[in-house]
């Protein structure tokens, strides 16, 4: 197939043939989607956020469908970093997939430990640091909602991991001043930003008349939050035009991906859309290529942040 448009992109020093990635937690470790398309066809697989130890996650029910979206409260169920590095990463690299490992912790220390374990692994493209986790050292306040704690996490990861592997800090939209949080983590050493994690929400079951989710609150994702994602990306790109952004939030078509790119995203992760359509990533990638071509772009990079141009 000939590429009419050069879709390639970079985040820090990592290169990707296309800007369409999976979203952390929406592709498990990659194997399950490989049934539907070769993982090598998309830009990268962003793996489910892994913690230091194995973890059961939250009780069921873990999801509720909402208008044009869904709530989830998985609670970071996973095998722990050691099993993950032993089993999942080698398999992904065998598939020639580009791999971005997402890590999550409950303390600043846990993030550094994860970074240390990752440092020696070769073949990984980048690390995404999911800081939308409760900080057990500060009354469970989510790291990403606390400018100081977010900085310290990224600072710890940067110092441990050394200078090579790009660090993508993934932020929560549930804050008063997102550009301030973004600036803090960039100063602390993040090479790129992932925007946005889910929006905190809740559904009450009107039969049991209690919160529907086992974990009470959950994260809202899907098309419902796309306007929030576009705003977040636009705001942060305006404040920090040189910092690459991995955009996400409700993308389910090439049109949506283009919208995030025009707002300032250099890459686009697709989460919830894969639940409704296992081949969503391929469809989105193809549609994006056509839309870029129709607008006269010869490279995807030309479109990044194009909505900010002067009149």
């Amino acid at each position, binding site marked *: 197939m000939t590429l009419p448009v050069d879709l390639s992109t970079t985040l820090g020093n990592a290169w990707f043939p296309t800007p369409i990635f999976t979203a952390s*937690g*929406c*592709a*498990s470790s990659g*194997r*399950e*989607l490989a*049934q*539907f398309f070769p993982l090598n066809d998309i830009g990268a697989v962003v793996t*489910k956020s892994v913690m230091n130890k194995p973890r*059961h*996650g*939250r*009780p*069921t*029910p*873990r*999801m509720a*469908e909402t*208008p*044009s*979206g*869904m709530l*989830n409260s*998985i609670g970071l*169920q996973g095998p722990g970093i050691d099993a993950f590095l032993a089993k999942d990463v080698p398999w992904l690299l065998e598939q020639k997939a580009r791999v971005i490992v997402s890590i999550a912790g409950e303390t600043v220390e846990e993030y550094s430990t994860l970074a240390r374990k990752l440092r020696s692994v070769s073949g990984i493209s980048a690390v995404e640091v999911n800081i939308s986790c409760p900080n057990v050292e500060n009354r469970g306040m989510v790291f990403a909602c606390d400018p100081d704690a977010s900085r310290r996490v990224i600072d710890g990861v940067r110092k441990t991991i050394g200078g090579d592997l790009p660090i993508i800090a993934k932020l929560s939209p549930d804050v008063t001043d997102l550009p301030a949080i973004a600036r803090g983590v960039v100063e602390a050493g993040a090479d790129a930003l992932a925007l946005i994690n889910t929006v905190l929400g809740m559904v009450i079951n009107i039969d049991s008349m209690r919160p529907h989710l*086992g974990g009470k609150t959950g994260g809202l994702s*899907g*098309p419902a939050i796309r306007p929030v994602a576009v705003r977040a990306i636009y705001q942060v790109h305006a404040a920090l035009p040189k910092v690459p952004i991995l955009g996400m939030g409700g993308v*389910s078509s090439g049109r949506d991906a283009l919208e995030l790119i025009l707002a300032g995203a250099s890459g686009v992760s697709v989460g*919830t*859309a*894969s*639940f*409704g*359509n*296992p*081949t969503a990533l391929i469809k989105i990638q193809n549609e994006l290529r056509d839309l870029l071509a129709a607008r006269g772009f010869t490279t995807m990079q030309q479109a990044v942040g194009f909505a900010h141009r002067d009149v």
Partner: protein
Amino acid sequence: MATINRSAQQQIVTVVGNKRVGAYHQILLHVGEIVKNCRPGNFVAISVGGESSKMVLRRAFAISRVSDSSQYGGTMELIVAPHGSGSKWLCAQPEGTEIDIVAPLGTAFGIPTESVNALLIGGGYGSAPLFGLADVLKSRGCKVDMLLGASIGSKIYAPLEGKRSVNSLKIYTEDGSMGETGRVTESLLEIIENREIDIIYSCGPMGMLAAITELVSDLDVIHQCAVEESMACGIGICMTCVLPVSNEDGSTSMLRSCIDGPVMEGEKVRWDLVGKIPEAHQ
């Protein structure tokens, strides 16, 4: 896991039949070649609501039966209860509608290599996959008895043709409006003993599956059940559908009921921990 969903395909298929049967809709889909890979116990995940739908997730339905000989080529039958907005939408689709499916998904009922005495227990629309299973078991020389239960008679799904492969069929309703009054677990132990049952296959509400597991826990009988957990993706990528399942070493794992299920060994499921977090209870 390497073998799970190996033959799953996404495909646009046509509704070729939609008939009310009691409280359910019997929906026939022209699916073509897919039927070759469908086994009793597998399910299908269906997009609902059409192009401008606000429903972003697929709905899971057990594959009730597949056929490759009818006038339409390969067809798949579903028995759908109009429950919430997605299943109601599906039940309202007329013949000719095109829908987007992914199938076959999940594990299938294990088929014994020798001829054994099998008891099939269905609750509500849970009977749907059991008739296809009965056909397979009978063709392997098994003796197949069946118990069906529901709250009311209109929720018993027991098609005439389906009964061909069944040695006996006993029906229970809670209100007594059809068959005997009561639940399928009523005289379960006697039935197992009298009919020298080797294996139980069950499909229905989680409470029924748990009750059966409990009742047969001391017996030397295999119990395979098809579980039903709320699913967001159906293909193993979201981790919403997990169930606590015992490992060999006595620990508990949260397994995805969409790819490590829906068919699971009843005795391995930690029914007491469903809806809880294992750590807190070990």
